[in-house]
């Protein structure tokens, strides 16, 4: 049996809104340590990894490791019916083909339960190797979302370059070019408004803005976003979820075609 009770139910609502654009169907994995998900987009260049640790739930019961296949759009529709202050409980019996979402209003005067059919989803589980990153940028998530939105009105791809000077976001399109530089800035009043850059090595990578904009749907989850980059490797865009977990997005970089031809075969 599975029974997870989350007092801050709005977190789960926000999680679904942040990943449903990228992934249609996914397996949620439940174990004694937490509620997690790993899924790729249809073209397999982007991946989302979600973790909600068991300690973050008011009540967490998971008798056996369980995997539940869900259509994320349908799940989001169900969670939309929960109020922002509702407590959300997720329940499923062993071997059941449905999951139940229960919403309790703060004063307990309204209790709703919604039952959703589960799916059988064959998914490729990619092992995500640990990596050391050449550069890590931590900045306000609203600022990052604004940059991705602004640049996507000019071009389709973004070049993220990190040097001692700061982090530069560049794009170009039919109507022209755009560059936005964020310098390190740690002397602000509130720590969540700071831009912090750790750089071991300069980095320059190109990504599809369409995916970056999808990732920024997670902005409501966290005031800050952490962007980890190494040359020629996927970027990691991470949003913390309160004190209970994270949602991480991985995106493959775009590699210049002529460069690729000159490289030795792996």
């Amino acid at each position, binding site marked *: 049996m599975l029974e997870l009770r989350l007092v801050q139910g709005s977190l789960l609502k926000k999680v679904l809104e942040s990943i449903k654009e990228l992934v249609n169907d996914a397996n949620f994995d439940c174990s004694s340590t937490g509620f997690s998900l790993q899924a790729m987009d249809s073209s397999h260049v982007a991946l989302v990894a979600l973790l909600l640790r068991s300690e973050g739930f008011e009540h967490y019961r998971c008798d056996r490791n369980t995997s539940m296949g869900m259509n994320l759009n349908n799940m989001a529709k169900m969670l939309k019916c929960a109020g922002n202050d509702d407590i959300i409980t997720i329940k499923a019996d062993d071997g059941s083909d449905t999951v139940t979402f229960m919403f309790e209003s703060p004063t307990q005067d309204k209790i709703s339960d919604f039952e959703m059919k589960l799916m059988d989803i064959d998914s490729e589980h990619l*092992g995500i190797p640990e*990596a050391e990153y050449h550069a890590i940028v931590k900045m306000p998530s609203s600022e990052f979302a604004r940059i991705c939105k602004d640049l996507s009105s000019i071009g389709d*791809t973004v070049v993220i370059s990190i040097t001692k000077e700061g982090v530069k976001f560049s794009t170009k399109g039919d109507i022209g070019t755009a560059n936005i530089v964020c310098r390190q800035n740690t002397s602000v009043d509130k720590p969540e408004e700071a831009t912090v850059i750790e750089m071991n090595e300069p980095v320059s990578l190109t990504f599809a803005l369409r995916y970056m904009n999808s990732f920024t749907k997670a902005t409501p989850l966290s005031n800050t976003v952490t962007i980890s980059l190494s040359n020629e*490797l996927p970027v990691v865009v991470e949003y913390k979820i309160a004190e209970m977990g994270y949602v991480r997005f991985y995106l*493959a*970089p*775009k*590699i*210049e*075609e002529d460069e690729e031809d000159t490289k030795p075969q792996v």
Partner: protein
Amino acid sequence: MRIDYFLVSETLKERIVACEMHGHGIELEGFYGSDHCPVTLELSPSSNSQNEDPFVTKPLSYFFSLLSGC
């Protein structure tokens, strides 16, 4: 003898250069098929080829396998 054919979308129609049937007439002149009579379709290059993305994107599994050294 099976009859082969091509289907193209409306947008591709303008790019048709030639469509040739290999083997015609009672003597099957030019035929090189077997139980099919082959058909070839020639399309002109995309008119916006200059705007094509000069980048390629490999799937994530490629990068992850690089990282784990396998």
